[in-house]
């Protein structure tokens, strides 16, 4: 009798547990952090290469920043192998500007979904850093400074 009562209780508890777990399944579960961070890593590597090609003082400084981004993303568990964003042909700094926008879109996508608080802090910091690079590039290219209140890589 005791054993039977416990079995019933265990079954009910399991059912309740499944029901609670099911509540979370009403929205599609985001991919794991390693996958969410992968596009940010691919963009940082593409940017490092683009800035190395651009050369000059600004290119060397920003290439170093992007290599640092890549290293920190790997330390946070980012997976290698995501598709690199397309860089348009043309002057190197203009191509880098387009890549910065792609990197920012990757960071914005990740920042809202990653589970680890450290990964959230990292993607927010990388977003802010790439937003800084955009203003530096726009200034160098004579395009002016601020374009949007919410830099997310979707502005011109």
């Amino acid at each position, binding site marked *: 009798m005791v054993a039977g009562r416990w079995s019933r209780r265990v079954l009910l508890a399991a059912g309740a547990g499944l029901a609670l777990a099911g509540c979370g399944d009403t929205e599609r579960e985001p991919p794991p952090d390693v996958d969410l961070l992968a596009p940010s890593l691919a963009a940082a590597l593409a940017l490092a290469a683009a800035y190395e090609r651009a050369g000059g003082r600004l290119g060397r400084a920003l290439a170093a920043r992007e290599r640092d981004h890549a290293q920190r993303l790997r330390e946070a568990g980012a997976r290698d192998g995501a598709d690199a964003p397309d860089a348009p042909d043309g002057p190197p700094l203009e191509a880098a500007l387009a890549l910065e926008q792609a990197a920012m879109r990757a960071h914005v996508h990740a920042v*809202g979904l990653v589970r680890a608080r450290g990964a959230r802090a990292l993607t*927010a910091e990388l977003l802010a850093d790439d937003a800084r690079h955009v203003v530096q590039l726009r*200034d160098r290219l004579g395009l002016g*400074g601020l374009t949007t*209140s919410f830099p997310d890589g979707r502005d011109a």
Partner: protein
Amino acid sequence: MRERLSRREALAAGLAGAAALAIAPAAAGAASAEGDALTALMRAELDAMFVYRESRLDGAAAIIEQDLAHARAIATHVEALALPLQRPADDRADLPPEGLAVLEAGGGAARRQAAMAYERSLIAGCAQRLAQLEDPNTVRTVATVMAGHAQHLVLHELMSRR
């Protein structure tokens, strides 16, 4: 049979109640932390508008416009939590030390340096509060607000070299 169903129902109700009791305080705590964080962030944006309005720095108008957009965006998240909105600052006495330092700085160069320190404090404020947020869209709003302040900072850096 009826008795067995009643026991099952009672057990199920008890489990549901226990689960609700276990979840409710945690959810309330998270909402409270998120609300406190968003309220502080809205306050910071309104203070920044006041600081730049009083600063008379070159380029301040564009920054004020963006800080207003930040305050409005954060306000929608504050309202979603049914919390009271912050009122715009109208007195230096209410400003944080970094904001007050901008207004108390001497010439243009010193004021520009103080504005850079102020933007760093606004960035740090966003970074610190990101961990307290739950909703992905709220996280994205605050992350892009933080990126906006990073752009204000580099704008000050560029202008200080001219």
